[in-house]
């Protein structure tokens, strides 16, 4: 279980998160929606200790992330896959090497790594692309490699930062389908940050809206679709103010 416990974070005096509290249950996919710049990605980065909170904390299975020492943080990160907004592939490595890098860190044998890489690439429909360089791939393919890199580790949790941003609708739908398939295959707990409502409705079990640094509303897809909250309503309908 991932718990955001009254998380506060500001950058150069500008408050971004002002007391984010949210619980992500085991096995579910939680989608965090919100306007651009409201701190969705910032919240996600706290889960793996890439950012340290000013106050509050994130608890993963009861472990407060900001208090973990390096060894404990490293152990925690081995349980979490992170899919970055622009994939963050290592551009000096092939697709296969990108997917293998995390596995190598876990001390797997070359045969096991080869097997896992092939399996992960197959799951994202990129079989046979292991020798290609990231620069040769389209945006959608890069995102799929990013997902393969995360799921190859067989993590307990996968965090997706804007998985469909910048993609055409068809490719975005492919990524959404992939997220659902990943969950079905691996049974992982997921947190998806997005402002793409179609994607949120497709992949989410529950949706939470982040507004002015804290959660405005959290509920199932049906509850969010039927909300009376004017702020949430305006966002999900995409109406200008």
């Amino acid at each position, binding site marked *: 279980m991932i718990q955001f416990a009254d998380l506060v974070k500001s950058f150069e005096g500008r408050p971004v998160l002002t007391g984010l509290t949210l619980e992500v249950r085991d096995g579910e996919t939680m989608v965090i929606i919100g306007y651009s710049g409201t701190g969705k990605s910032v919240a996600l*980065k706290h889960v*793996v*200790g*890439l950012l340290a909170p000013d106050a509050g904390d994130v608890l993963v299975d009861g472990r407060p992330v900001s208090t973990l020492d*390096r060894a404990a943080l*490293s152990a925690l*990160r*081995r349980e*979490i*896959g*992170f899919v*970055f*907004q*622009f994939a*963050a*592939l*290592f*551009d000096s490595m092939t697709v296969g090497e990108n997917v293998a*890098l*995390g596995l190598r*860190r*876990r001390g797997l044998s070359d045969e096991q790594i080869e097997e896992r890489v092939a399996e992960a690439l197959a799951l994202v429909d990129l079989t046979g692309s292991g020798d290609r360089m990231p620069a040769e791939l389209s945006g959608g393919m890069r995102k799929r490699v990013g997902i393969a*890199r995360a799921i190859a*580790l067989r993590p307990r949790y996968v965090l997706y930062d804007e998985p469909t941003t910048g993609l055409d609708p068809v490719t975005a739908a492919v990524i959404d389908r992939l997220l659902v398939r990943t969950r079905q295959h691996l049974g992982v707990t997921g947190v998806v940050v997005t402002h793409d409502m179609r994607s949120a409705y497709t992949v989410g079990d529950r949706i939470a809206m982040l507004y002015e640094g804290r959660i405005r509303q959290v509920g199932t897809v049906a509850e969010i679709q039927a909300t009376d909250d004017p702020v949430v309503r305006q966002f999900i309908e995409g109406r200008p103010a």
Partner: protein
Amino acid sequence: MIERIGHRTVQAIEGVGRAGQFIADMIRAVPEVGVWARLTLVQMRRVGVDSLPVALFIAAFTGVVLALQASYTFTGAVPMYFVGTLVGKTMMLELGPVLAGLALAGRVGASMAAELGTMRVTEQVDALETLAYDPQSFLVIPRVIAGTAMFPVVVALAVVVGITTGWVTSLALLGLSTPEFIKGLKLFYQFKDTWFGLVKSASFGFTITMVGCAVGLSTRGGAEGVGRSATNAVVYAAIFILVLDALWAAVLLR
């Protein structure tokens, strides 16, 4: 005015603190030999072999100029075989390490700052951390070890090339014979001349790569930030080289 001086002073102190923290983080990551050992070999090729052409090119022409300037200065006053002395001493003690260091601050330091800076702004460094790698052991240590180990090799070859071109110039343009040039070369030679230049080169290699990595990993702000980091890495490394050069002379040559 006073506020600006105070602000700059605070910034400078913060900078020293960040540098200290960076070095402490690097030392803490040293035990992860399994991560950095393989990557170090790749960096040694990039820092060493790939830097040779520029270092040797500079050394070759420095040797020529040193021989000609020595001859111009000595004519009629000092025996001409002292050309060999000046070329040898200057190449080993000063111009070999410093010119190669300054050239490689541009080639190696800027390239490292730009590479790591790009990795930082495209979240590749964050990705490394989420894969449970320490950027210090994966990115910094291989580069710093490669710089420290390979700079003396590059400088040693540069010194050999500089002395060789000085010798050829003495034969072809100054009318010196080979025995005269070698007599001058050996006249005041001490083994210290060799190790002093190499130790100095190793310290330059350490500094250039360290600065390149530290500046690169602290990059903010996209393409503009990467450009700024590359420039800063060269400027800071050049300043450190000149300060270290004076420091080594004060400590070891008195």
